[in-house]
Protein backbone atom coordinates (compact mmCIF):
# COMPACT_ATOMS: atom_id res chain seq x y z
CA UNK A 1 0.00 0.00 0.00
CA UNK A 2 1.34 3.39 -0.96
CA UNK A 3 2.59 5.57 1.85
CA UNK A 4 0.56 8.69 2.42
CA UNK A 5 2.88 11.68 3.06
CA UNK A 6 0.19 13.18 5.31
CA UNK A 7 0.62 10.29 7.77
CA UNK A 8 4.41 10.54 8.10
CA UNK A 9 6.64 12.40 10.54
CA UNK A 10 9.32 14.80 9.33
CA UNK A 11 12.67 16.09 10.51
CA UNK A 12 13.43 19.78 10.08
CA UNK A 13 16.30 18.61 7.84
CA UNK A 14 13.69 17.18 5.37
CA UNK A 15 13.84 13.44 6.10
CA UNK A 16 10.51 11.65 6.42
CA UNK A 17 9.92 8.86 8.96
CA UNK A 18 7.36 6.07 8.91
CA UNK A 19 7.18 4.17 12.24
CA UNK A 20 5.83 0.61 12.19
CA UNK A 21 5.61 -2.17 14.77
CA UNK A 22 7.56 -5.27 13.68
CA UNK A 23 7.23 -7.97 16.35
CA UNK A 24 8.58 -6.52 19.55
CA UNK A 25 10.47 -3.78 17.75
CA UNK A 26 9.57 -0.43 16.36
CA UNK A 27 11.14 0.13 12.95
CA UNK A 28 11.49 3.53 11.27
CA UNK A 29 11.56 3.67 7.48
CA UNK A 30 13.36 6.84 6.43
CA UNK A 31 13.50 8.81 3.19
CA UNK A 32 13.72 12.40 1.99
CA UNK A 33 10.71 14.56 1.27
CA UNK A 34 9.40 15.56 -2.14
CA UNK A 35 10.02 19.18 -1.15
CA UNK A 36 13.70 18.48 -0.46
CA UNK A 37 14.09 16.63 -3.74
CA UNK A 38 12.46 19.46 -5.62
CA UNK A 39 14.72 22.01 -3.94
CA UNK A 40 17.86 19.96 -4.66
CA UNK A 41 16.88 19.20 -8.30
CA UNK A 42 19.13 17.24 -10.62
CA UNK A 43 20.32 14.56 -8.17
CA UNK A 44 23.52 12.91 -9.38
CA UNK A 45 25.00 10.93 -6.50
CA UNK A 46 24.03 9.34 -3.20
CA UNK A 47 26.27 7.84 -0.54
CA UNK A 48 24.66 5.43 1.94
CA UNK A 49 25.86 3.66 5.10
CA UNK A 50 26.24 -0.07 5.77
CA UNK A 51 23.64 -2.23 7.52
CA UNK A 52 24.48 -2.63 11.21
CA UNK A 53 25.60 0.93 11.82
CA UNK A 54 24.18 2.53 14.97
CA UNK A 55 22.88 6.06 14.59
CA UNK A 56 21.56 8.70 16.96
CA UNK A 57 18.99 11.31 16.00
CA UNK A 58 20.82 14.15 14.26
CA UNK A 59 23.77 11.99 13.11
CA UNK A 60 24.81 12.29 9.49
CA UNK A 61 24.32 8.88 7.87
CA UNK A 62 25.03 9.71 4.22
CA UNK A 63 24.85 12.38 1.59
CA UNK A 64 23.04 13.26 -1.56
CA UNK A 65 24.57 15.41 -4.28
CA UNK A 66 22.87 17.58 -6.82
CA UNK A 67 24.61 19.35 -9.69
CA UNK A 68 25.24 22.34 -7.47
CA UNK A 69 25.90 21.03 -3.99
CA UNK A 70 26.39 18.21 -1.49
CA UNK A 71 23.66 17.83 1.13
CA UNK A 72 24.15 15.68 4.23
CA UNK A 73 21.43 13.20 5.21
CA UNK A 74 20.61 13.10 8.93
CA UNK A 75 19.06 10.29 10.90
CA UNK A 76 15.82 11.50 12.45
CA UNK A 77 15.84 8.63 15.01
CA UNK A 78 18.02 6.61 17.43
CA UNK A 79 18.73 2.99 16.59
CA UNK A 80 20.48 0.42 14.43
CA UNK A 81 20.32 0.40 10.64
CA UNK A 82 18.75 -2.93 9.66
CA UNK A 83 18.22 -2.31 5.93
CA UNK A 84 19.61 0.01 3.27
CA UNK A 85 18.02 0.61 -0.12
CA UNK A 86 21.28 -0.10 -1.92
CA UNK A 87 19.84 0.18 -5.48
CA UNK A 88 18.75 3.73 -4.84
CA UNK A 89 22.02 5.53 -5.77
CA UNK A 90 21.76 3.97 -9.25
CA UNK A 91 18.09 4.94 -9.59
CA UNK A 92 17.93 8.57 -8.52
CA UNK A 93 15.46 9.41 -11.30
CA UNK A 94 12.98 7.01 -9.70
CA UNK A 95 13.63 8.53 -6.27
CA UNK A 96 12.53 11.84 -7.74
CA UNK A 97 9.33 10.29 -9.16
CA UNK A 98 8.40 8.39 -6.01
CA UNK A 99 10.12 9.66 -2.85
CA UNK A 100 7.76 7.97 -0.35
CA UNK A 101 7.56 4.38 -1.62
CA UNK A 102 10.28 3.47 -4.09
CA UNK A 103 12.48 6.18 -2.56
CA UNK A 104 12.86 4.73 0.94
CA UNK A 105 16.51 4.96 2.04
CA UNK A 106 16.96 3.21 5.42
CA UNK A 107 15.16 1.08 7.95
CA UNK A 108 16.26 1.69 11.53
CA UNK A 109 15.28 -0.47 14.53
CA UNK A 110 14.59 2.08 17.24
CA UNK A 111 16.63 1.88 20.43
CA UNK A 112 14.70 4.75 21.97
CA UNK A 113 11.58 6.70 21.17
CA UNK A 114 12.75 9.76 23.06
CA UNK A 115 13.66 11.68 19.88
CA UNK A 116 10.34 11.14 18.14
CA UNK A 117 8.70 14.05 19.94
CA UNK A 118 11.13 16.36 18.10
CA UNK A 119 9.72 15.36 14.72
CA UNK A 120 7.14 17.44 12.89
CA UNK A 121 3.67 16.49 11.72
CA UNK A 122 2.98 16.80 8.00
CA UNK A 123 1.10 20.07 8.59
CA UNK A 124 3.94 21.59 10.63
CA UNK A 125 6.50 20.41 8.08
CA UNK A 126 4.50 21.95 5.22
CA UNK A 127 4.41 25.19 7.13
CA UNK A 128 8.21 25.11 7.56
CA UNK A 129 8.63 24.46 3.82
CA UNK A 130 6.27 27.30 2.99
CA UNK A 131 8.34 29.68 5.07
CA UNK A 132 11.59 28.45 3.50
CA UNK A 133 10.24 28.56 -0.05
Amino acid at each position, binding site marked *: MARNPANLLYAKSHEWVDIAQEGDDKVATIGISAFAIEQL*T*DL*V*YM*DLPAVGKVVAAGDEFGEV*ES*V*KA*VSPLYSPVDGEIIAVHSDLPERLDELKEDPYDFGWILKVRLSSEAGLSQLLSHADYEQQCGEAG
Partner: protein
Amino acid sequence: MAPFAGFQMPIQYQGIVAEHQACRSTAALFDVSHMGRLRFDGEGSAELLDHLLSRRVIGLPIGAVRYGLMCNAEGGVLDDVLVSHLQTPSGSQYHLLVVNASNRAKIIRWITPHLADFSTVTMSDRTELTAMIAIQGPRAVEVTARLFRAHVDQLKRYRAVITEQFGKPVIVSRTGYTGEDGFELIVRADEALRVWENLLLVGREYGFCAAGLGARDTLRLEAGMPLYGHELSEQIDPISAGLRFACTLDGRSFIGDEALRRISEQGPEQVRIGLLPEGKRPVREGCKVLGPNDEPVGWITSGAPSPTLQRPIAMAMVDAALVDRTTGVAQVDLRIDNRGHHQPATSVPLPFYHRPL
Protein backbone atom coordinates in the same frame (compact mmCIF):
# COMPACT_ATOMS: atom_id res chain seq x y z
CA MET B 1 17.85 33.14 -4.64
CA ALA B 2 21.20 33.78 -3.02
CA PRO B 3 23.05 36.95 -2.08
CA PHE B 4 26.12 37.56 -4.27
CA ALA B 5 28.32 40.68 -4.30
CA GLY B 6 25.45 42.82 -3.06
CA PHE B 7 22.88 41.41 -5.51
CA GLN B 8 20.11 38.88 -4.96
CA MET B 9 20.96 36.28 -7.59
CA PRO B 10 18.90 33.33 -8.84
CA ILE B 11 20.87 30.07 -8.58
CA GLN B 12 18.26 28.37 -10.73
CA TYR B 13 14.78 28.92 -12.17
CA GLN B 14 13.50 25.46 -13.21
CA GLY B 15 16.65 23.42 -12.53
CA ILE B 16 20.30 23.67 -13.44
CA VAL B 17 20.34 20.73 -15.87
CA ALA B 18 17.25 21.86 -17.82
CA GLU B 19 18.63 25.40 -18.08
CA HIS B 20 22.07 24.13 -19.09
CA GLN B 21 20.58 21.90 -21.80
CA ALA B 22 18.43 24.75 -23.13
CA CYS B 23 21.57 26.85 -23.56
CA ARG B 24 23.37 24.03 -25.42
CA SER B 25 20.42 23.09 -27.63
CA THR B 26 18.56 26.37 -28.29
CA ALA B 27 19.29 29.39 -26.04
CA ALA B 28 19.09 30.62 -22.48
CA LEU B 29 18.84 34.09 -20.92
CA PHE B 30 21.03 35.15 -18.04
CA ASP B 31 20.57 38.24 -15.90
CA VAL B 32 24.20 39.25 -15.43
CA SER B 33 23.50 42.74 -14.14
CA HIS B 34 25.74 42.03 -11.16
CA MET B 35 28.80 42.27 -13.44
CA GLY B 36 30.56 45.62 -12.94
CA ARG B 37 30.41 48.12 -15.82
CA LEU B 38 32.95 50.94 -15.74
CA ARG B 39 32.97 53.62 -18.43
CA PHE B 40 36.07 55.64 -19.38
CA ASP B 41 35.61 58.91 -21.25
CA GLY B 42 38.12 61.44 -22.49
CA GLU B 43 41.47 61.72 -24.19
CA GLY B 44 43.87 59.16 -22.76
CA SER B 45 41.31 56.44 -21.86
CA ALA B 46 43.03 53.94 -24.12
CA GLU B 47 46.46 54.80 -22.67
CA LEU B 48 45.20 54.44 -19.09
CA LEU B 49 43.61 51.03 -19.75
CA ASP B 50 46.60 49.90 -21.81
CA HIS B 51 48.78 50.57 -18.76
CA LEU B 52 46.45 48.49 -16.55
CA LEU B 53 45.69 45.51 -18.81
CA SER B 54 47.52 42.50 -20.24
CA ARG B 55 46.04 43.22 -23.69
CA ARG B 56 46.71 46.16 -25.97
CA VAL B 57 43.99 48.82 -25.66
CA ILE B 58 45.84 51.58 -27.57
CA GLY B 59 44.72 51.23 -31.17
CA LEU B 60 41.73 49.02 -30.30
CA PRO B 61 39.33 49.68 -33.21
CA ILE B 62 35.85 51.05 -32.57
CA GLY B 63 33.55 48.08 -32.04
CA ALA B 64 36.29 45.73 -30.86
CA VAL B 65 36.11 43.77 -27.58
CA ARG B 66 39.15 42.18 -25.91
CA TYR B 67 39.46 39.73 -23.02
CA GLY B 68 42.36 40.57 -20.73
CA LEU B 69 43.70 40.50 -17.19
CA MET B 70 44.32 43.28 -14.73
CA CYS B 71 47.39 42.25 -12.76
CA ASN B 72 49.39 43.49 -9.84
CA ALA B 73 53.16 44.09 -10.17
CA GLU B 74 53.85 40.43 -9.27
CA GLY B 75 51.62 39.24 -12.11
CA GLY B 76 48.83 38.09 -9.75
CA VAL B 77 45.39 38.55 -11.26
CA LEU B 78 43.26 41.34 -9.77
CA ASP B 79 40.47 40.55 -12.21
CA ASP B 80 39.71 39.20 -15.66
CA VAL B 81 37.82 41.70 -17.76
CA LEU B 82 36.35 42.55 -21.15
CA VAL B 83 37.30 45.92 -22.58
CA SER B 84 35.34 47.43 -25.48
CA HIS B 85 35.87 50.53 -27.59
CA LEU B 86 32.46 52.00 -28.41
CA GLN B 87 31.03 54.92 -30.33
CA THR B 88 27.68 56.54 -29.55
CA PRO B 89 25.28 57.50 -32.38
CA SER B 90 26.32 61.14 -31.82
CA GLY B 91 29.91 60.17 -32.54
CA SER B 92 31.55 60.31 -29.11
CA GLN B 93 33.84 57.45 -28.21
CA TYR B 94 34.52 55.73 -24.92
CA HIS B 95 35.89 52.53 -23.44
CA LEU B 96 33.83 50.14 -21.38
CA LEU B 97 35.35 47.74 -18.88
CA VAL B 98 33.23 44.81 -17.68
CA VAL B 99 34.58 43.39 -14.41
CA ASN B 100 33.54 40.67 -11.99
CA ALA B 101 30.89 41.68 -9.45
CA SER B 102 32.98 40.46 -6.54
CA ASN B 103 35.95 42.59 -7.70
CA ARG B 104 34.16 45.78 -8.69
CA ALA B 105 34.96 47.81 -5.56
CA LYS B 106 38.57 46.55 -5.55
CA ILE B 107 39.07 47.44 -9.22
CA ILE B 108 37.67 50.94 -8.73
CA ARG B 109 40.08 51.39 -5.81
CA TRP B 110 42.95 50.05 -7.94
CA ILE B 111 42.23 52.33 -10.92
CA THR B 112 41.45 55.53 -9.01
CA PRO B 113 45.06 56.54 -8.18
CA HIS B 114 46.08 55.99 -11.82
CA LEU B 115 43.44 58.48 -12.96
CA ALA B 116 45.64 61.22 -11.49
CA ASP B 117 48.16 60.55 -14.28
CA PHE B 118 45.45 60.92 -16.92
CA SER B 119 43.74 64.19 -15.99
CA THR B 120 41.51 64.20 -19.09
CA VAL B 121 40.04 60.76 -18.32
CA THR B 122 36.90 60.27 -16.26
CA MET B 123 35.81 56.90 -14.89
CA SER B 124 32.12 56.37 -14.15
CA ASP B 125 30.61 53.31 -12.52
CA ARG B 126 27.60 52.48 -14.72
CA THR B 127 26.74 49.24 -12.90
CA GLU B 128 23.66 50.45 -11.05
CA LEU B 129 22.40 52.69 -13.86
CA THR B 130 22.38 49.84 -16.35
CA ALA B 131 21.45 46.17 -16.54
CA MET B 132 23.19 43.38 -18.43
CA ILE B 133 21.52 40.39 -20.06
CA ALA B 134 23.27 37.51 -21.81
CA ILE B 135 21.40 35.50 -24.45
CA GLN B 136 23.46 32.42 -25.26
CA GLY B 137 22.96 29.34 -27.38
CA PRO B 138 23.01 28.07 -30.97
CA ARG B 139 19.73 29.84 -31.83
CA ALA B 140 20.30 33.03 -29.81
CA VAL B 141 21.58 35.18 -32.67
CA GLU B 142 19.10 34.17 -35.39
CA VAL B 143 16.07 34.51 -33.13
CA THR B 144 16.90 37.77 -31.33
CA ALA B 145 18.86 39.75 -33.94
CA ARG B 146 15.67 41.16 -35.49
CA LEU B 147 14.77 42.91 -32.24
CA PHE B 148 17.58 45.41 -32.80
CA ARG B 149 17.86 48.31 -35.20
CA ALA B 150 21.37 47.37 -36.36
CA HIS B 151 22.03 44.12 -38.21
CA VAL B 152 23.59 42.58 -35.12
CA ASP B 153 23.62 39.11 -36.70
CA GLN B 154 26.44 40.54 -38.85
CA LEU B 155 28.55 41.32 -35.76
CA LYS B 156 31.62 39.12 -35.61
CA ARG B 157 32.73 37.37 -32.40
CA TYR B 158 34.28 39.85 -29.95
CA ARG B 159 32.69 42.84 -31.65
CA ALA B 160 30.14 45.21 -30.14
CA VAL B 161 27.89 48.03 -31.30
CA ILE B 162 25.63 50.63 -29.72
CA THR B 163 22.22 50.36 -31.37
CA GLU B 164 18.54 50.59 -30.41
CA GLN B 165 15.76 48.27 -29.40
CA PHE B 166 12.31 49.90 -29.75
CA GLY B 167 13.94 53.32 -29.78
CA LYS B 168 15.98 52.78 -26.60
CA PRO B 169 19.78 52.53 -26.61
CA VAL B 170 21.39 49.13 -26.13
CA ILE B 171 24.97 47.89 -26.34
CA VAL B 172 25.08 44.56 -28.17
CA SER B 173 28.27 42.55 -27.82
CA ARG B 174 28.89 39.18 -29.51
CA THR B 175 30.51 37.68 -26.45
CA GLY B 176 29.59 35.28 -23.68
CA TYR B 177 30.62 32.92 -20.94
CA THR B 178 28.99 29.64 -21.90
CA GLY B 179 30.96 28.26 -24.85
CA GLU B 180 28.00 29.08 -27.11
CA ASP B 181 27.38 31.82 -29.64
CA GLY B 182 25.22 34.71 -28.50
CA PHE B 183 25.01 38.27 -27.31
CA GLU B 184 25.58 40.20 -24.13
CA LEU B 185 23.33 43.26 -23.90
CA ILE B 186 23.65 46.36 -21.75
CA VAL B 187 20.55 48.50 -21.36
CA ARG B 188 19.35 51.25 -19.04
CA ALA B 189 18.28 49.76 -15.73
CA ASP B 190 14.69 50.94 -16.19
CA GLU B 191 14.52 49.14 -19.55
CA ALA B 192 15.83 45.82 -18.23
CA LEU B 193 12.54 44.12 -17.46
CA ARG B 194 11.02 45.06 -20.83
CA VAL B 195 14.07 43.79 -22.73
CA TRP B 196 14.19 40.57 -20.67
CA GLU B 197 10.50 39.85 -21.23
CA ASN B 198 10.75 40.61 -24.94
CA LEU B 199 13.65 38.20 -25.36
CA LEU B 200 11.76 35.48 -23.48
CA LEU B 201 8.65 36.17 -25.54
CA VAL B 202 10.34 35.88 -28.95
CA GLY B 203 12.35 32.89 -27.73
CA ARG B 204 9.48 30.98 -26.19
CA GLU B 205 8.50 29.07 -29.32
CA TYR B 206 12.16 28.06 -29.74
CA GLY B 207 12.41 26.75 -26.17
CA PHE B 208 14.45 29.63 -24.74
CA CYS B 209 14.41 29.83 -20.96
CA ALA B 210 15.84 31.86 -18.12
CA ALA B 211 18.97 30.38 -16.57
CA GLY B 212 20.58 31.12 -13.21
CA LEU B 213 24.05 31.21 -11.74
CA GLY B 214 24.11 27.40 -11.36
CA ALA B 215 23.85 26.75 -15.09
CA ARG B 216 26.19 29.64 -15.84
CA ASP B 217 28.80 27.84 -13.73
CA THR B 218 28.38 24.38 -15.29
CA LEU B 219 28.36 25.91 -18.81
CA ARG B 220 31.56 27.87 -18.31
CA LEU B 221 33.21 24.86 -16.65
CA GLU B 222 32.43 22.64 -19.66
CA ALA B 223 33.78 25.42 -21.89
CA GLY B 224 37.02 25.42 -19.84
CA MET B 225 36.65 29.08 -18.91
CA PRO B 226 38.23 30.33 -15.69
CA LEU B 227 36.16 31.91 -12.92
CA TYR B 228 37.71 34.52 -10.68
CA GLY B 229 38.13 33.20 -7.13
CA HIS B 230 38.53 29.65 -8.49
CA GLU B 231 41.00 29.45 -11.39
CA LEU B 232 42.13 33.07 -10.96
CA SER B 233 43.22 35.07 -7.93
CA GLU B 234 45.90 37.47 -6.81
CA GLN B 235 48.00 34.35 -6.05
CA ILE B 236 47.55 32.91 -9.56
CA ASP B 237 49.10 34.54 -12.62
CA PRO B 238 47.54 34.35 -16.09
CA ILE B 239 50.34 32.14 -17.50
CA SER B 240 49.70 29.46 -14.85
CA ALA B 241 45.97 29.81 -15.45
CA GLY B 242 46.47 28.95 -19.13
CA LEU B 243 45.70 32.49 -20.31
CA ARG B 244 48.96 33.22 -22.13
CA PHE B 245 46.80 34.05 -25.18
CA ALA B 246 45.31 36.98 -23.25
CA CYS B 247 48.73 38.54 -22.51
CA THR B 248 50.43 40.70 -25.14
CA LEU B 249 53.94 40.85 -23.71
CA ASP B 250 55.99 42.11 -26.67
CA GLY B 251 56.61 45.78 -27.40
CA ARG B 252 54.55 47.27 -24.60
CA SER B 253 54.63 47.92 -20.89
CA PHE B 254 51.83 47.51 -18.35
CA ILE B 255 51.54 46.72 -14.66
CA GLY B 256 52.81 43.19 -14.08
CA ASP B 257 54.52 42.89 -17.49
CA GLU B 258 57.98 42.05 -16.14
CA ALA B 259 56.68 39.33 -13.85
CA LEU B 260 54.61 37.83 -16.66
CA ARG B 261 57.57 37.86 -19.08
CA ARG B 262 59.70 36.08 -16.48
CA ILE B 263 57.01 33.45 -15.78
CA SER B 264 56.40 33.00 -19.49
CA GLU B 265 60.12 32.41 -20.16
CA GLN B 266 60.87 30.22 -17.14
CA GLY B 267 57.55 28.40 -17.22
CA PRO B 268 54.96 28.53 -14.44
CA GLU B 269 55.21 26.41 -11.28
CA GLN B 270 51.60 25.31 -11.55
CA VAL B 271 49.28 24.94 -14.48
CA ARG B 272 45.54 24.59 -14.94
CA ILE B 273 44.37 21.22 -16.25
CA GLY B 274 41.09 19.48 -16.99
CA LEU B 275 40.20 16.27 -15.14
CA LEU B 276 37.62 13.53 -15.64
CA PRO B 277 37.10 11.94 -12.20
CA GLU B 278 36.16 8.25 -12.40
CA GLY B 279 32.67 7.16 -11.42
CA LYS B 280 29.63 9.25 -10.67
CA ARG B 281 30.67 11.12 -7.58
CA PRO B 282 31.31 14.81 -8.34
CA VAL B 283 34.52 16.33 -7.02
CA ARG B 284 34.32 19.85 -5.66
CA GLU B 285 36.50 22.90 -5.31
CA GLY B 286 39.20 22.52 -2.65
CA CYS B 287 39.73 18.73 -2.95
CA LYS B 288 43.43 17.81 -3.05
CA VAL B 289 44.90 16.30 -6.21
CA LEU B 290 47.30 13.42 -5.44
CA GLY B 291 50.21 12.08 -7.51
CA PRO B 292 51.25 8.43 -8.09
CA ASN B 293 52.59 8.09 -4.51
CA ASP B 294 49.56 9.80 -2.95
CA GLU B 295 51.59 12.98 -2.56
CA PRO B 296 49.64 16.25 -2.94
CA VAL B 297 50.38 17.81 -6.35
CA GLY B 298 47.60 20.38 -6.58
CA TRP B 299 43.99 21.20 -5.85
CA ILE B 300 40.60 21.22 -7.55
CA THR B 301 39.59 24.76 -8.52
CA SER B 302 36.10 23.92 -9.87
CA GLY B 303 34.17 20.68 -10.14
CA ALA B 304 30.64 19.65 -11.05
CA PRO B 305 28.66 16.95 -12.83
CA SER B 306 28.67 17.88 -16.52
CA PRO B 307 25.13 17.85 -17.93
CA THR B 308 26.50 17.51 -21.49
CA LEU B 309 29.04 14.75 -20.79
CA GLN B 310 26.80 13.10 -18.16
CA ARG B 311 29.76 12.60 -15.83
CA PRO B 312 31.80 14.59 -13.31
CA ILE B 313 34.31 17.09 -14.70
CA ALA B 314 36.79 19.34 -12.90
CA MET B 315 39.57 21.84 -13.37
CA ALA B 316 42.66 21.78 -11.16
CA MET B 317 45.91 23.64 -10.57
CA VAL B 318 48.76 21.10 -10.44
CA ASP B 319 52.56 21.05 -10.44
CA ALA B 320 53.69 22.13 -13.89
CA ALA B 321 56.44 19.48 -13.95
CA LEU B 322 53.76 16.77 -14.27
CA VAL B 323 52.12 18.34 -17.30
CA ASP B 324 53.08 18.20 -20.98
CA ARG B 325 53.22 21.86 -21.97
CA THR B 326 52.13 21.20 -25.56
CA THR B 327 49.04 19.15 -24.82
CA GLY B 328 48.22 20.54 -21.36
CA VAL B 329 47.72 16.95 -20.14
CA ALA B 330 49.29 15.46 -16.98
CA GLN B 331 51.73 12.63 -17.74
CA VAL B 332 51.17 10.69 -14.49
CA ASP B 333 48.20 8.96 -12.86
CA LEU B 334 46.29 11.34 -10.64
CA ARG B 335 43.78 10.78 -7.88
CA ILE B 336 41.50 13.20 -6.10
CA ASP B 337 41.00 13.16 -2.35
CA ASN B 338 37.21 13.47 -2.41
CA ARG B 339 36.45 13.80 1.30
CA GLY B 340 38.62 10.83 2.20
CA HIS B 341 37.83 8.70 -0.84
CA HIS B 342 40.75 8.55 -3.32
CA GLN B 343 39.06 8.85 -6.70
CA PRO B 344 41.16 8.20 -9.85
CA ALA B 345 40.98 10.95 -12.49
CA THR B 346 42.08 11.20 -16.11
CA SER B 347 43.78 14.39 -17.26
CA VAL B 348 42.29 15.69 -20.53
CA PRO B 349 42.85 18.78 -22.70
CA LEU B 350 40.55 21.74 -22.05
CA PRO B 351 37.84 22.58 -22.92
CA PHE B 352 35.52 19.67 -22.13
CA TYR B 353 32.99 21.00 -24.63
CA HIS B 354 33.41 22.58 -28.07
CA ARG B 355 30.34 23.98 -29.75
CA PRO B 356 29.65 22.24 -33.07
CA LEU B 357 30.63 24.40 -36.06
